[in-house]
């Protein structure tokens, strides 16, 4: 017999700390040899179970996704579970320091990002000088001392 807390999980699987709504605490029955990573437990039907997609098994100290729920009879159902390693070890993960290469907030635009979607082609811009100190002219070539005669 194990102790379960059934939840409704609103978060994506890759979210470390899931947004959970508790449904009910109940007991589950181990009916066969199980794998702690993906166990199957038999529980008594309870109100709201149909919204259950997540659970915590106290004895296993792990959070699980409910991958399948099979109603065995009018009173019992079998939950197939798969461990959520992120939530189960969230404190450890959060306290660990890691080399982070992509981030939603703490990004660095100066780090070359090969994944940035770039379309084919380029756009061209022309820019005149900010300061013009000397201008040549093509329209009215000067006639005033614009020739240089170099002679011996």
């Amino acid at each position, binding site marked *: 017999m194990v102790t379960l807390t059934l939840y409704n999980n609103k978060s994506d699987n*890759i979210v470390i700390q899931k947004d959970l709504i508790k449904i009910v605490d109940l007991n589950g029955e181990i009916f066969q040899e199980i794998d702690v990573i993906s166990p199957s437990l038999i529980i008594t039907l309870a109100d709201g179970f149909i919204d259950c997609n997540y659970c915590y098994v106290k004895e296993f100290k792990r959070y699980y996704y409910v991958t399948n729920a099979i109603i065995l009879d009018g009173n019992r159902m079998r939950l197939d579970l798969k461990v959520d390693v992120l939530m189960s070890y969230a404190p450890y993960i959060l306290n660990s320091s890691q080399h*982070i290469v992509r981030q939603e*907030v703490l990004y660095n635009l*100066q*780090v070359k990002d090969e994944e940035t979607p770039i379309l084919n082609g380029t756009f061209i811009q022309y820019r005149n000088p900010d300061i013009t100190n000397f201008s040549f*002219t093509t329209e009215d070539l000067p006639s005033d001392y614009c*020739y240089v005669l170099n002679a011996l």
Partner: protein
Amino acid sequence: MSNVFKYTLNNGYYCDTWINKLVDRNKYPISGELVKCFNEALQFYNREEFKIGVLSALDYTPEPKIEKATLLHTKYWGLAPTIDYRCTGYSVLNGVSNTKNRNPNMRSQILSGWFYNNTNEGINTLVVEGVQDHFRYGTGDFNNPELYEEVMSTCYMFTNNNNPDVEQDVVFYCELEPVYQSQWITGSGTVFTNFDVNSLTHTNHMNLTALKNKYIDKVGENLTIKSFTAYGNTLGVPRKEINIDGSGRSNLTSPYVEFLLQGNYLHFIPLYGIMFDGCCPNYGEINLFANNIPKLIFTPFLHKYGYFKEPPVFKSQGSVTSELLRLDKHTLSFTVGSEAEYRKLFNDLGLKVTFIKDEAINIPVEDWSEVPVTPEPPTPEPPAIDDPVLPDTPVRPDTGHANGNGGQEGGQVDNELKPPISPDSDLQEEGVSTGVKHASVSWAMTEEEVNDLNFTFLSGDLWTNIPSWFSNPQQAVISLIKFPFSLPNISADHISQSDQLVTIANVPMETRDKQVYGRIMHHKFKTRVKICEFDIKRFFNSYLDFEPYTKIKIYMPYIGNVDLPVDYIMDKKIELIYDINYIDGSVLAIVKLTQEYGGHIVLTTSGAIGINIPVAKSDAQANTMSAMKSIASLGLGIATAGATGGVGSALLTGVQGATSTAISNIRQTTSTMDRPSAEHTRAISSSPYLIYERPITNMPPNYTQIRGIATNIYKPLKEMAGFTVCKNVKLDNLTRALSSEVDEIRNILETGAIFGKPKGGN
């Protein structure tokens, strides 16, 4: 939001406190990103605006523009020696101290300074006072001097851009004079300027009297800014209580400083708290500790408060660094506001404070308390190399990286080769030795005078005067070139002011009917003709602004398009300079950084700016015809290219039909050039311009939330918010997890996980 800010509380009190909470350099590594930082800061503080008017100046000002700094007077205030400075054009904040790798058990560290507007001096003059240095070392009883490892305390002069048209917001830092330490507890403000970290001895004892004597002669004189130095921040280790002690100096603080010099940048260790200190018994002190840093007030004086607001997500701080905005040169501050804001901040902290609006007490130096000084033998100033300034190129750990800076950007290369700097003088004009300078004479001529020359050439009167080693006058002509500008406009100093009779091979160019005049040119070259200036600014504010993503060409009149080294010139200003050769019509174009960015040459290239007019011939008759045909064809060529054809008309007298042979001869001449001939480029554009070629990005909505953006940091994951991808995940000591679970965690972290409350919802 992860922003942390440093800002200045400048609400009109003379002793506002500035609070340092620097911007995370990983997120805001460049000056341009500071705009973003400020925008987020506005949201953070629910402000509509900050005074950030000088941000752009900061962005593009590599060095603070301090016109001069004048020492007003020194004074003794409490136990802390203070020095007043006046900085014309810019305000000055004289702050203190900086330590590195300091023993965490060492108690106090002061970082302070204040400033106020001296309205009597006018808005351009902002007088700033600051405690020169008043941190003590050692424990409370000061029995055991600590082992100093690179301990350094410096006297800072913080300068604000105080342009009256732009509210001060940006604080610059520079070092007015390095000092080592001030043991104000035991030595009453003793300052050393020659401190031996090994023996803990000093030879330049600078107590108050010595300090006064040192500076009193300089009152009213301009001071020399010795160097720019790093800004030393202090971090405090939080303790368990908050205690306000209004009567004594602080004594249970345990602040420490940790920052790491990597490459040319200063990297701050993540913040756990922030220092404070109270050091002026005259005004009482405040002594604060906090359970949960960083909500903490620090102040060197009771009426100098700062507020260190806890960011909602992260508790870290960093620095803003970039090539142009480096922490060891610049940092930011901006005004938070009024007394009401202060009060709100303090109320948030549950602290009762009293605002003191007294003016700063300026004690004339003559009124200083004399402190007996033990005579010491005069010690020469230590050589500059011993000064404890932060090195520009610090010793880097052997990280295995090729650049030795731990993989961080901004590493400075030892023995760096400095790029050449374009000469600022016109020495080239005198100094170029071509063998022609003294063997030939150059004449600036008008179109009419060239016509006269042509007439003279065709006249038979000259032949008898030409020396026998010339078969014709044209053989004595080296070149005749037409330039697209009026020579006096560009070389006024190099051309005689009046016309003279032209001589060729010492033969005056005159006939019975005609005299040929021109103006002697004193130089064969004209250098440093500044054509224009470009300000190279970013567009994306990211790596996309650099090669290979962004390419920049410069079109130079009479030369063509040339690629510019984008990485080198980005965020800088460049100028286009022409060096013109009057003998052959060639031009050397120099693209260089403007002086404010070092003046280094970016590239050089050459072209033809003058139209070379052929004048050679083989015999008298053939000579005349050939010259006419050639000139005629040149005229056609110019006309074809859209030019005026002035050259052709000048020497086309009597020749109406140019032969195709002559045209082809000229084309052959011009075809030997590796660039478009002058007459062709003339038809394109006479104004330089830049051509930017940029990539086209196509970021889908919420891209950062679903995929993140590249970064390169090492941090605790609890400081992350949103989508995060890790690399080379290490999961030591996760003893409870099965190996398959560890593998799964690693796989998820390396492919992307979401921390905190995701923005996009789930």
